[in-house]
Every structure is written in structure tokens, then in C-alpha cells.
């Protein structure tokens, strides 16, 4: 009865190439891109909204459409990030750093197209890794216990030094503040409420998505309204963009895209980490290994390529532990797994023997979906870029309304809308004293993961009687600690070396602090 894997892959491709499935994918990707572009509606939500629809479909068709929506939504987040400095999904936080700068420099369409191409490549690399290596990689993901997650978060936090263009001290302060905000709500280890200041709704904690919309969308609208400019940026279509951009990307960023995609797939397969962490770390690594790290944050194509290829590679990665062990790698994967279960397909070690045909149709369809995303996304870029030609006095109110509905839709809760506005105002004020929303968001993303990992590690360490052994001496933890230290100090050392050689190092403009 055992079917050959090659045979399964080929029949999977044949299945996903049926006209019906292609139609589903085109629809799914278009819907995904729309949902991803809207601030507040995340990829997880896009997939969750579609699961009930798939109940009435054939298992394979339903999964094909879920996969397409997922890919589209993760990519779609880049559109808003680039055009408006608002990450459409948490995974595209890192895309705002350079994407929005490019828009301001008048290269919006270039940035949009680069993010599309990177997403497609990243997505395909992720799926290929899933297809070829998922059994051994799932075992690797099991090596990550809670102490390793804690150090992974610390490593993620070191990216603050890469993203704070002005002042590292203030960047760190912002990151810690984000972490502190993340502690409001239920204590992950004791299960009791804390930091709620007697205010009951705070028990549910500050949710990532409403706070992110506040940090980016609301405060960004206020920033745009400060001065009396009529448009966000000048925008003119570049002729023959596709050809010139592809050759530029091939020349500049082959290694960046491949490295970021692999990083994305790897971080994606660690349950709980997910797209935001992957794209931020990929961005940091791209900057670190670049010969001219100064250009990042000022509109570097490489920054977009790193962030977008890695977050789409997360999709393939997060399916690795799900397919092999029944453990979803991220919230969206958990929803897809719910969809699988509803169709009577049990993910895990018996998946391939029990329902290999459906599983492989799903996996191979993700490759096709990514390929289809290129024309569909290209068409939609032309549409969304026009927002730059709409006067700001129209754009700003629309964004504010969409932000409100996005914050509300997450949990049908007006509380989240208030969170959005309040954190928007806080982020705006903080940006005036030099604390950017990037580090704040990073802290909020990593905070709950880090705290849970630390708390559980300490419980285990307490039982086993040795904090040193559990926290510091496990091999993977040890490597991550070394990497974090290197990550903090390499920029310092590099700038020191450059100074000594006599190269001019640009001084920070805020000399005071």
C-alpha cells in the first residue's frame, strides 16, 4: 500500500493544476491580498474566515483555497507597509523600515514589485524545504525547548540595534516598554491577572494587532497631518520596471533572498515564533552581512527583499511540524489544521500513509499558488499604488475608519478600538522624543513568547535544581546566547574599526543623547 513520495508529488501537482483549483487559487490569492492589505485584518483571520466556506468543499479543494488565501494575505501586508508605513499584517513590520522610505523617495512601484517578487520566491523556497526535508526538520524543531525559545527572543530583541536609526539607547527603551506592555493581562505561568490596575477589561491583555494598528496606522496618520502636505509622496509609474528590477534584484540580492527564505522557513517551523519574528531577524541579518549597512532604513531594496521573502517562507516552515507531528507552527497554521481535522484528515506522523494524496495536493498547490500570485499581485499593485494620488485629507480619514474596524473585527470588541487609539497617541508622543514604533512593536511581539518561555524554564529549573544547567548550558541555548552577544557587539566593533581606519562615520544627528 505504501505509495512512492515522488508519485504523490506528481499526482499532487496534477491535482492542483486542474482548472477548478486554479480558479480557486486566483480567487483565494486576490481575497488574501485584499485582507492582508487592510490594516487589522491579519493572515490568520483571513484563513479563519474561510474555513467554514471550505466545509462544503472537497477536502483537497478547500485546502487549496485556504493555502492560496494564506499566501496572498502574508504578501498583501507589504502593500500597506510600503505605501502607508502601516504593516497590513504583523509579519510585515520589518517591511515598513525600508519600504515606506522608498515610497517617500518616489520609488513606490519599485518597492511594491520587489516585495511581490521576494514573496513569491520566499514562498516557493519555504514550500520546497517543506516538501523535501520535513521529516528531519520536524525532529530539529523538537530540540527547541522553552529555554531555547527564551534565547531566541533575546536574539530577536538584539535586532533593535539594527532598526534604531537614531539612538540605540532609546531603541532599547522602546523595546523594553513594548515588553512591559505585553505583560499586562493573565500571567502565563500562574494563570492569574496582574497589571490590570483593577480595570477588568485589561485581564485579556493588550492584544498585538490593535496595538500595532495604533503604533503604526494611527500615529502615522497623525504624523502625516502635522504638516500641510497634500500627498504622501510623489508617485509616477516607472516604465519597463519589471525587467530592470529583476536584473537589479538578481545582481544585488540573490544571496539575501535565499538566506532570508531559509531563515524564514527555519523560524516558521518553531511553533510560536512565526512571521513577525522571522521577518525581523531576516532583516537584521541582511543588514549585518551587508557591506553598507548604513543604507538600511533609508530605502534599501535589500531590506524589503529580506523581510518579504522570509515572511512568506514562514508558511512552508510552519507546516513542517504540523504535517510531521500535528503541531501547528503559527496561529494561521493552527487554523488550517482545524480545517484539515474538520475534513477528517489527521495531521501528524500518519498523515502520509493515511491521506497522502490530499496532503501532497495541498503542499504542491502552495507552489502553484505562489506562481499565480505573481500576475495577480502585479495587477493589484497597479491598483493599490493609486492611493498615493489621493489627497491626504481623504486618505487619512479612510485609514482611521479602516483601522477602527480592523481593531474591532479581531475580537468584536470596542475595547480593542480604544486600545488602538490610545496606543496610537502614545506612539505618536513617543516618536517625538525619538522612540520609534518599530522597537515598541518588536517588544510587544516577543514579550509574551519570552515571558512564557522564561517562566516555564524557571519552573523546570526549580524542579531539576539547576538554573545554570537549564538556562545556559543546553547546546542550542548556548549557541543562541553567543549569537545574541555577537549581534549586539558587531555594529559597535565594526564602527570602531571603521573609525580607526579613518573612514568617515556619520555622526548621529541627535548629539545630545
Amino acid at each position, binding site marked *: 500500500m505504501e505509495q512512492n513520495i515522488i508519485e504523490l508529488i506528481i499526482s499532487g501537482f496534477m491535482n492542483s493544476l486542474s482548472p477548478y483549483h486554479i480558479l480557486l487559487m486566483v480567487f483565494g490569492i486576490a481575497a488574501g491580498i485584499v485582507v492582508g492589505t487592510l490594516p487589522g485584518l491579519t493572515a490568520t483571520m483571513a484563513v479563519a474566515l474561510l474555513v467554514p466556506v471550505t466545509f462544503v468543499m472537497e477536502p483537497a479543494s478547500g485546502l487549496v483555497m485556504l493555502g492560496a488565501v494564506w499566501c496572498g494575505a502574508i504578501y498583501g501586508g507589504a502593500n500597506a507597509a510600503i505605501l502607508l508605513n502601516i504593516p497590513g499584517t504583523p509579519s510585515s513590520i520589518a517591511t515598513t523600515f525600508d519600504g515606506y522610505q522608498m515610497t517617500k523617495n518616489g520609488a513606490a512601484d519599485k518597492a511594491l514589485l520587489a516585495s511581490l517578487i521576494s514573496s513569491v520566491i520566499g514562498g516557493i523556497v519555504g514550500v520546497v524545504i517543506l516538501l523535501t526535508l520535513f521529516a528531519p526538520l520536524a525532529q530539529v524543531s523538537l530540540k527547541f525547548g522553552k529555554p531555547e525559545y527564551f534565547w531566541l527572543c533575546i536574539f530577536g530583541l538584539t535586532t533593535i540595534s539594527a532598526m534604531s536609526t537614531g539612538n540605540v539607547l532609546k531603541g532599547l527603551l522602546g523595546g523594553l516598554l513594548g515588553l512591559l506592555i505585553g*505583560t499586562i493581562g493573565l500571567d502565563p505561568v500562574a494563570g492569574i491577572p496582574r497589571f490590570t490596575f483593577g480595570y477588568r477589561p485589561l485581564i485579556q491583555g493588550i492584544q498585538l494587532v490593535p496595538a500595532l494598528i495604533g503604533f503604526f496606522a494611527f500615529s502615522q496618520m497623525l504624523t502625516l497631518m502635522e504638516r500641510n502636505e497634500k500627498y504622501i509622496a510623489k508617485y509616477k509609474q516607472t516604465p519597463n520596471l519589471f525587467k530592470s528590477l529583476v536584473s537589479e534584484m538578481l545582481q544585488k540580492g540573490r544571496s539575501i533572498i535565499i538566506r532570508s527564505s531559509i531563515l524564514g522557513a527555519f523560524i516558521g517551523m518553531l511553533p510560536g515564533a512565526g512571521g513577525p519574528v522571522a521577518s525581523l531577524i531576516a532583516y537584521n541579518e541582511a543588514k549585518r552581512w551587508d557591506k553598507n549597512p548604513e543604507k538600511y532604513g533609508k530605502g534599501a531594496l535589500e531590506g524589503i527583499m529580506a523581510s518579504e521573502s522570509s515572511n512568506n517562507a514562514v508558511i512552508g516552515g510552519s507546516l513542517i511540524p504540523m504535517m510531521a507531528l500535528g503541531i501547528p507552527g503559527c496561529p494561521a497554521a493552527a487554523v488550517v489544521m482545524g480545517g484539515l481535522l474538520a475534513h477528517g484528515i489527521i495531521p501528524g506522523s500518519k498523515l502520509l500513509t493515511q491521506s497522502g494524496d490530499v496532503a501532497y495536493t495541498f503542499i504542491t498547490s502552495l507552489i502553484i499558488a505562489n506562481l499565480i500570485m505573481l500576475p495577480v499581485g502585479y495587477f493589484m499593485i497597479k491598483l493599490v499604488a493609486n492611493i498615493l494620488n489621493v489627497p491626504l485629507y481623504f486618505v487619512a480619514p479612510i485609514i482611521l*475608519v479602516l483601522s477602527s474596524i480592523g481593531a474591532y*473585527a479581531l475580537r468584536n470588541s470596542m475595547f480593542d478600538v480604544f486600545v488602538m487609539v490610545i496606543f496610537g*497617541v502614545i506612539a505618536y508622543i513617543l516618536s517625538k522624543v525619538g522612540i520609534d514604533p518599530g522597537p515598541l512593536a518588536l517588544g510587544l511581539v516577543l514579550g509574551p513568547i519570552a515571558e512564557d518561555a522564561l517562566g516555564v524554564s524557571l519552573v523546570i529549573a526549580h524542579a531539576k535544581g539547576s538554573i545554570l544547567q537549564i538556562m545556559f548550558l543546553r547546546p542550542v541555548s548556548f549557541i543562541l546566547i553567543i549569537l545574541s552577544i555577537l549581534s549586539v557587539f558587531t555594529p559597535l566593533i565594526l564602527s570602531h574599526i571603521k573609525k580607526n581606519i579613518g573612514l568617515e562615520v556619520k555622526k548621529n544627528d541627535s548629539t*545630545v543623547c
Partner: protein
Amino acid sequence: MTQRFANIIMSFVMLGICAVFLYQTNKLSYPSNVFPYILIGGIAILSLIILLQNVFSKVEVREKFNQINYKRIISIVVISIIYISVISTFGFYSVTFIYLIVMCVSLQSQEANIKMAMKVRNSLLLSTSIVILVYIVFNILLKVPTPRGFLI
């Protein structure tokens, strides 16, 4: 206001936040209190460093703070807070429609060469189409519920 003064205020605010969270953390038990203590310690140290740097620094950097149209920012914030406060009583669509018109018209106040009637007409068109579009996308296509009140 100078950047230096702003930094000093910020440091004090941060130290205040530390004090509030510290008071609450003291009530927690091990291991729940470890993580908050680390964060509070970190924020306090960084704030102190920034505070000291600014108190003893003699360089004054004039910020571009006075170029900001404060009146506009504050009115956006106030209108938005009123907007979200009344959504749950009156319902999302009616309030959004009015909010969009008010915002669009008032944000166009700088555009001296557009006539008032044009501004109102354009805002009306925009608000109507946005409300209908939002309804189609969110309620019909995506089936995401919007807040309801006694109107719509």
C-alpha cells in the same frame, strides 16, 4: 521646547511607570515576578542614563516641534475619540458616515483654492462610497461583524 527638555520629561515619566509596575510586581511570587523585575530594572537604568546625559549636556538642539500644526493633531485625536465612543450607541455605519464628512471637510481647511461647496460635495461622495464599500467588503464578502447601535 527643546529635545533636551523633552528627554528629561520622558525619563521622569518612564521612572514613574517603573514605580507603578514595581509596586504591582512586588505582590507577585516566584517565578512570575522575574520577568517584570528584569524589564523594570532595564527601563529604570536606561531612563536614568538618558536623564543624566541630558541634565549634564550643554548642547541645545532646537527641535522642529514648532512647525507642527498642533491644533490639527489635537482636533483629529479628539474627533476620533468622540467617534469611537459613540459607535456602540449609534451603530458603526451612521457614525462613520458623519465622522468621514467631518474629517474630510475639516482637513481640507488648508486648501484655500477649493470652494466650500466643492469640499462638502467631494466629502459627501467619498463618505457615501466608502461606507457602501466597507459594508460590501466587511459585512457581505468577509462576513466580519461591525459594531451595531440603535441606528445602524
